[in-house]
């Protein structure tokens, strides 16, 4: 396989395209509403109405507007149409509409602010290409970045380009990607590994699932470029078992890429080798932490270990290992193709590029959005998301899952970047954005997250294992209206202790939802407190005067 062959495949595929393309979203969300039947019906109907010479019914990945699904998109005469809430029996009318017939299926607006305010890098091909056909990916310029890197750039130049882009880890912590790559590249060792973290455990987040389901080759290409840059020849893609569709599409993608010589030995007829294996997770939130994830890849219990040594120096089986998130890898091919300087031009001073968010919860427009960094929260929630449904008010926005915090509605003008969110006591996280309306009880939400952390604690270090249980019990006591001010003080003390003494990110961030709701919604906690039978200033022990009289 050489560049000419790649271009040949692209040209051949483009010339075989039909005039009208009907795109059926077949991502996990729409699939649950019979998207597979819809596609079958559309195909049959196109044939029945004599349009099969002009119409291609294409399986595509996530279009983003999941709350309005199942979605069907139409590209006809250079115009894009969208149908929402499609049912299998709507197929005849949708195909009929291609001929100009009237159709009463709900029409979506591709110019809706939900779409108009987005900027696509990671999700550029989502909802456009068929994720199960490598030709589709190649036809829109896929694998050219890998070719460019392998044949025209030296490994340090690739690292430099990524450093120049200012890309930061999209898994949540925001570590500069170029720096990480440079460290792994410099680490001595003949064997190095690449790991893609697709263990998207945050409840309320599904960006990585969507990227893997809609555009698996984009992630594979990013991993292959990373492998070349750091000198690795083996990669692992760690995906949650809860995402069966993503796993099967990745398996197909790896097989296709190997067949074309884009993965495996001698990529693009250069001396570079890169193999990718899929590792399926088994339902443990802690495995999103990099050292726990590596233990899991090695087939062990997913418990974290202290750092240093960092995985970049000693990771899988003691070898230097580069671990990046799915979304981080998905940014790479665009950076190589268009240059680090272009990427650095998007976003804010310290947070570059775009970020994908899963906008869910009590909000009118549910779904997946990709926006440039630095966009104010208000634009995302109010304009793109349309605010809370049923005439209610937005009360707060939760970002970062169980490791993040709740941002109250008063702070909606905050720009979305790593530093601003951290300042508010939340984090960027992997990109979950759950909106809560004024009917939500914030103490219950804090309890919900604490229960999650309690059950997901791996049990290795005591602050997290015992602390989360105690904090959950205290929160339960508060919600049952049995707690006093003293319990609240104890809760705050425990938050501080668990945060500062836990071994890994899970424990260190587990108190965040409590700390942030206490910071902004303290009144809700206090309203549930009972008067202290021993007086407001007591520590619960018997008073010295009482002891003296006994």
């Amino acid at each position, binding site marked *: 396989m050489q560049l000419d062959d790649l271009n040949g495949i692209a040209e051949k595929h483009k010339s075989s395209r039909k005039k009208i393309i009907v795109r059926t979203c077949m991502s996990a969300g729409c699939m649950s509403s019979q998207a597979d039947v819809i596609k079958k019906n559309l195909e049959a109907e196109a044939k029945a109405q004599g349009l099969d010479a002009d119409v291609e019914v294409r399986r595509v990945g996530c279009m983003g507007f999941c709350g309005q699904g199942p979605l069907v998109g139409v590209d006809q005469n250079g115009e894009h149409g969208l149908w929402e809430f499609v049912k299998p029996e709507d197929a005849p009318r949708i195909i009929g509409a291609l001929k100009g017939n009237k159709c009463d299926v709900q029409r979506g607006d591709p110019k809706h602010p939900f779409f108009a305010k987005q900027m696509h890098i990671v999700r550029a091909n989502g909802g456009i290409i068929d994720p199960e056909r490598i030709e589709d990916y190649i036809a829109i310029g896929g694998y050219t970045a890998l070719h460019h890197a392998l044949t025209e750039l030296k490994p340090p130049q690739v690292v430099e380009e990524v450093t120049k882009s200012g890309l930061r880890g999209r898994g949540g912590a925001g570590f500069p990607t170029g720096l990480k790559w440079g460290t792994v590249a410099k680490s001595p060792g003949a064997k190095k590994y690449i790991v893609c973290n697709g263990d998207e455990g945050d409840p309320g987040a*599904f960006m990585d699932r969507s990227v893997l389901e809609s555009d698996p080759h984009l992630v594979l290409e990013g991993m292959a470029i990373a492998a070349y840059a750091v000198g690795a020849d083996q990669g692992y893609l760690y995906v949650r*078992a809860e995402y069966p569709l993503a796993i099967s599409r990745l398996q197909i993608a790896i097989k296709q890429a190997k067949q074309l010589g884009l993965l495996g030995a001698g990529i693009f007829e250069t001396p570079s080798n890169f193999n990718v294996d899929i590792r399926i997770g088994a339902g443990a939130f802690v495995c999103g932490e990099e050292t726990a994830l590596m233990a899991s890849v090695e087939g062990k219990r997913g418990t974290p270990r202290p750092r240093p040594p960092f995985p970049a120096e000693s990771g899988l089986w003691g070898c230097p290992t580069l671990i990046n998130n799915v979304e981080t890898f998905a940014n790479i091919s665009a950076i190589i193709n268009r240059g680090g300087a272009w990427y650095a031009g998007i976003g804010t001073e310290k947070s570059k590029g775009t970020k994908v968010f899963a906008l869910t919860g009590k909000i009118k427009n549910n779904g*997946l959005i990709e926006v440039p960094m630095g966009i104010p929260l208000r634009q995302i929630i109010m304009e793109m998301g349309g605010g809370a449904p049923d005439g209610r008010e937005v009360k707060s926005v939760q970002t970062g899952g169980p490791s993040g915090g709740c941002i109250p509605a008063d702070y909606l003008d905050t720009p979305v970047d790593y530093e601003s969110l951290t300042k508010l006591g939340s984090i960027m996280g992997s990109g979950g954005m759950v909106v809560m309306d004024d009917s*939500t009880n914030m103490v219950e939400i804090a309890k919900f997250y604490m229960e999650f952390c309690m059950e997901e604690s791996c049990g290795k270090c005591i602050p997290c294992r015992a602390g989360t249980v105690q904090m959950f019990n205290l929160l339960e006591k508060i919600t049952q209206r049995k707690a006093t001010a003293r319990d609240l003080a104890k809760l705050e003390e425990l938050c501080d202790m668990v945060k500062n003494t836990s071994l890994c990110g899970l424990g260190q961030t587990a108190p965040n939802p409590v700390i942030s709701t206490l910071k902004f919604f303290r009144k809700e906690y206090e309203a549930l407190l009972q008067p202290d039978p021993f007086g407001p200033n007591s520590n619960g022990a018997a008073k010295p005067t009482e002891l003296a009289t006994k």
Partner: protein
Amino acid sequence: MNTTLAVPPKTRLQSVLDHASGDKRFKILEVHMKKHQFRQDALIEVLHKAQELFGYLEDDLLLFISAKLKLPPSRVYGVATFYHFFQLKPQGEHTCVVCLGTACYVKGADKIISGIQEKYKIKSGGTTADNKLSLLTARCIGACGIAPAVTYDGHVSPKQTIESALEKIKIWI
């Protein structure tokens, strides 16, 4: 695994291997292990396959895997119990998995759970006495755009309510 203590381990392993030779599923599992060259780091992959074949991971099955991969039984048991995805008890005829991700929770998944619990007198993670229904919870199945989501026998259904959930289950029972 408690019973392991009562029987000397060697004879128990022998009886497991004897039993395994008559069961086709063990053969399929062994082929799968061979595909991974009996590598010990493929343990989680092997457990996934075993659960797919047998429905759940019983003690003898774990012992079989530990013997074939040359791993201590404690290590296999430790991994099987660590991950939520692995079931060590048999499931009911039908399973109903309610997603308890944040988006589903905010939209009332907790009410769906308590509704089912009340109606069928089971706890989450439990199975009804007639072995018809297992009620499980999931951490987040990534279908947040269509919250609250419930998985009935492996098929995800969007935007569920207590009524729609009970109706689906009623068909089974």
